[in-house]
Structures are given as C-alpha cells and as structure tokens.
C-alpha cells in the first residue's frame, strides 16, 4: 500500500456491525420496484433494475475479495464473461436448461479463478492488480477469437434459460424476481462466509498476513479459496447477464468493465456487501440519468469519481454514516 506519508491501513473499511436494517430496506425496495414499474415503461424499468441487480452480484463478489480480503482484482469482469459464455455456448448447441448451464457457469468461473489465483496470489499489491488485469485480458482475447461463437461480434442467446423444459424466465417480471432471489441468496451466502471462521482468517490476512501465518494459517490457501468463491459468484452474475441481455459478447470481460466494477464497489463503500449493491445501483443509475441529460456526461462523471475518492471516503455508506453522526442519530 502507498504509505509514505500516513499511518498504515489508511483504507476506510466499514465495519459491518449492523445486522440488516439497511440491507433489509434495499431488498424491500427491490422487491416492490416491479409494482411501481407497472405504471410506466415496464420493460425498460424492469430491464434497468435487473441490470443493476446483476452487476450488484458481481460487485458483491469483488467487494468480498477486495474490501474484506484486500485483494484488488482488475480482472474480475472475466468471471462475469465466463459465466455469460457458458450460457451462450451451451445455448448455441441447443442446451438451455439451467440445471446444466448454471452449474457450468459457476464451475468454469471457479476453475478459472483457481488456476489464475494460483499464479496471481503469489504477488502483492500493484503486481497483483496488474496480473489479474493480464488474465482478464487473456480471457477477453480468447473469447474474441471464438469464431464459431460469434468471435468479436458476440452471440445471441435465443431464449433465456429454461428449467426442466419450462421457459419460465421469458417473462420479464419472473426473471426480475429470479435475479432478485439470486442476489438475496448470494448476499446471505457471502455474509455467512464473511462472519465464519474462514472469513475471519481471510479478513485477518488483509490486515496482517504475517500475524496470520504466525498463527499457523496457510494464508495463500485461504486467499485462493476466497478468490475462487468470488470467481464463482462472478460467474453467477455472468449467467444472469447473458439471460438479461439475451446476448453474449467479449466486451463483458474488458479491463474497462473490471474498472467499472471496482468503481461500483468504491461508490457503495469498500468492505460492505450491501454497500456493493448500493454502489452498483448508484453507478448504473447515474450513468443512465446523466446520459439522458447530455452527450458530454462523462465530463461530469469523471470529476465526480475523483471527488468521491477524495471526499467521500467510505462511499455512499460512509456519507450516510457522516450525516447520521452529524445529526447525532444512532
């Protein structure tokens, strides 16, 4: 870490002490959104919020290794892409049943995470960032060279995943709730892992790897397991993205996408799972709203990012804390 001029561990990490008031609110809002959407351009709003949830899952996975584990991965989008391609490639061969494509997505991402993690986790700090980026780029180029599966052009997903032959995800509303369920389950699973014994070692490895090693833990093994978990959850996000967009493209894996995921994590507040959800929502909704105002929206968005980093340490949740603290509540 860059520590030339300040105390160590300058990263503002939220301690997830509160159980579920804010997260519960988030899930409640998401559950009620389709009701509100029915009063307007339903397909569009549902599509937008579905997208938010899909990326929220990927952001949570990234937050897990980044915020809790201290592993800044610049290649996280590769897992999303691999999950998406699992759906696309199986679909191109006529296999649409999610009992096949979902495990395939999870498994393939996990394998990729295991193999690349074995190499990446031997490095530290900025080398880790760069090598995860390298593997992300490799995945991107490989996907782009798969000529029978569209290559650089991408591949259309003819129909959404079916369950035992039933195309129950074709309906946008049903699909929305399916994604919401996936988000909820991922959230609970990741949360359980974070507070488990494994999670404590994993988090301890971020704070002080030497101490962990002295206590007898194989830090490398623990980090790799965490990395694989994050990869698998990223694969889930990809599975859902392929179904949401009904299209699969190497663009899902570019380093710019990985960068966007990092931004989502930061927006919400590093080190908080529900923060990642908020961050994903904030990023995508700002992008959508600003884009509607002006074509030059990036002129505003760029400096906004800088300002968030400089002043909103701890992201939106950190801001909320400050406001709450200022008004003396809780």
């Amino acid at each position: 870490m860059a520590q030339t001029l300040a105390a160590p561990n300058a990263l503002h990490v939220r301690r997830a002490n509160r159980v579920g008031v804010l997260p519960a609110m988030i899930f409640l809002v998401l559950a009620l959104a389709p009701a509100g959407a029915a009063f307007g351009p339903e397909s569009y709003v549902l599509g937008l919020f579905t997208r938010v949830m899909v990326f929220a899952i990927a952001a949570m996975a990234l937050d897990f290794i980044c915020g809790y584990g201290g592993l800044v991965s610049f290649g996280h989008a590769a897992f999303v892409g691999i999950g998406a391609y699992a759906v696309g490639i199986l679909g191109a061969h006529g296999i649409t049943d999610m009992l096949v494509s979902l495990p395939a997505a999870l498994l393939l991402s996990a394998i990729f995470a295991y193999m690349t993690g074995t190499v990446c986790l031997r490095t530290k700090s900025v080398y880790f960032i760069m090598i995860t980026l390298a593997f992300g780029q490799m995945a991107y180029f490989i996907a782009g060279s798969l000529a029978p599966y569209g290559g650089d052009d991408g591949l259309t997903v003819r129909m959404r995943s079916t369950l035992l032959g039933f195309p129950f995800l074709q309906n946008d509303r049903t699909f929305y709730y399916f994604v919401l369920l996936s988000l909820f389950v991922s959230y609970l699973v990741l949360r359980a892992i974070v507070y488990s014994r494994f999670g404590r070692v994993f988090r301890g490895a971020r704070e002080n790897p030497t101490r962990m090693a002295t206590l007898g833990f194989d830090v490398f093994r623990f980090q790799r397991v965490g990395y694989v978990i994050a990869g698998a959850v990223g694969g889930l996000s990809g599975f859902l993205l392929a179904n949401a967009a009904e299209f699969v493209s190497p663009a899902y894996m570019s380093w710019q996408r990985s960068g966007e995921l990092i931004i989502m994590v930061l927006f919400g507040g590093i080190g908080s799972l529900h923060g990642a959800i908020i961050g994903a929502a904030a990023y995508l909704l700002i992008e959508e709203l600003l884009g509607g105002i002006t074509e030059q929206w990036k002129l505003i968005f760029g400096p906004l990012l800088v300002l968030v980093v400089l002043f909103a340490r701890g992201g939106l949740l950190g801001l909320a804390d400050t406001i709450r603290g200022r008004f003396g509540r809780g």
Partner: protein
Amino acid sequence: MSTGLFVVQVLNGLQFGVLLFLIAAGLTLVFGVMDFINLAHGVQYMLGAYLAVAFYALTGNFLIALVLALAAALVFGLLLEFLVFRHLYDRDHLEQVIATFGIIIFLNQAVKTVWGAAPLTLPIPEIFTGSIVLMPGLLYPVWRLVIIASGLAVGLLLYVLVSHTRVGMLVRAGATNARIVSALGVDIRRLFMIVFGFGTMLAAFAGAMIAPILSVEPGMGDTVLILAFVVIVIGGIGSMRGAFLAALLIGLVDTLGRSFATDILRLVMPPSPARTVGPAIASMLIYVLMALVLYFRPAGLFPVRGR
C-alpha cells in the same frame, strides 16, 4: 522466410521496444519513485499529442509546437498534482486507481469536446522527412530513427538524473522513506510535485513525438496505458534499467509474435485456422509473458525495493 527478413523484424521489434520505453519512462518515474498508480499516464500521453497538433496549427513549426506542448503539459500536470494527486499519495492503490480512472474518463471526453471526435494528424518536420533503405523495396523513415534516438536519450537522461544528481538522490531517498527525508529538512511535497510534473512532461513528449506516425484520437492513450504498465511490471517497479530491458523484450516478443506466429502455427495446423489463431495468440503473448515473469519473479525482473 529469409535471414534478411528475420533480421529486419528483429530490428522492428527493438524499435517498437524503444517506443514503448519512451512511453513508459514517465510512468516508471512516477510509479517507481512515488508508488503512485497513475492510470492518467495514458491521457497525459494523449494530451501531449493533441497539444502538439494544436500548437502546430498555430505556429506551423514542429519544434516550437513541441516546446509549447511540453510547457502546457507541465502546467497541466502540476495543476493535476496540486488539485488531485497530492491528496492521494498516502491513499490505498485502489483509490488511486479509481481517481485516475475518473481523470481518464474526463480527459477522453474533454479532448473530444474541444477537438472533435475525428482523428487528427501531425506532419513529420521537414528536415526529417527522408528515409533510408532498410531492405530492397522497403524504406525506413528517418523520423522513426529520431524517435529511437529520443527514446535512448530519455533513458540516458533519467539514468543520469536519478543516479548521479542530488535531486535524483533526494527522490530515491524520498521514495524509500519520506519521513526521514522530510525530517532532514527536505520539502518532500515539492520534490514529489517536481517528479510528477516531470513525469507528465515525459508522457506528453512521447505523445508529441509519436503523433507524426500514429493517429491522434480520443482514447489513444488507453491501449498505450496497458502496454506501459505491462512494461513496468515486468521490468520491476522502480527500476529504470528494468523498464528499458522489459520494453525491448516486449517489443521483440510482440513484433516477432505478430510476424511469425501464423507461420509457426501452419506447421501444426491447416492454414485457415492458423491465420486467425495466430494473431489471437500474438495479442495475448505479452500478457502470457507478464504472467510467466510474475510467476517466477513475483516482483518483476529487477525489483528495486523489497516491499
């Protein structure tokens, strides 16, 4: 495939390597010395090219345009340092990544707003428009030789500055332990500001020099950025020598890969798939190289500090 062709391709690879070094030099300085991940290096490179185009349109003289572009880039770099970067030195790498990412987004859009989205160009200065005969039927523009010379000159300059001057010594010391240097009465803030300004100028210099042979367009810094980072990481962060050697290595691997990958593959597979798998492998080659180097040497080829 003749030896002559092979030799020329090796030369091409070395030339590309020096080009990469010229681009990465500024980043090595900032990153290596201040441990600051400056993703904005790519857009500083782009800005140098655009400023050179703009000043050339005003003055009609390449040299004057170059000097003005460097001056403007320096001012811009110092401004950026003062407004944004100096608050980020003690922050986590993650936050540096995001803040500089924000600057990339902003500048790519700003450049498009000011100069338009269409690609622009800069002509080669009159005296250097000649070429030498590299092999029968192939000319090599003198300007490329000028770029190589400037790349080598920059390398030499940095080497001398960092190892043999007082400022260089302070910079190296400050990178190792800023607090002590500060306690010894040296203004670390000003030192870092100087280093950063210089790094920006180097990036802009590379952009301006390369503009006559490449397209000047929004986003031109993004590809270059990744290449520069790969160079530095393979070379070892903080090592000027490492950056130079890594740049040459990458230049060679990339060029020879592109030249011969397809031919090599044709030995083991039919020509049609070889033609498309070859370039795919060639694009990935530098990343594979980086992964290999980091696997065996997790801190690069010539790590400077134990971190």
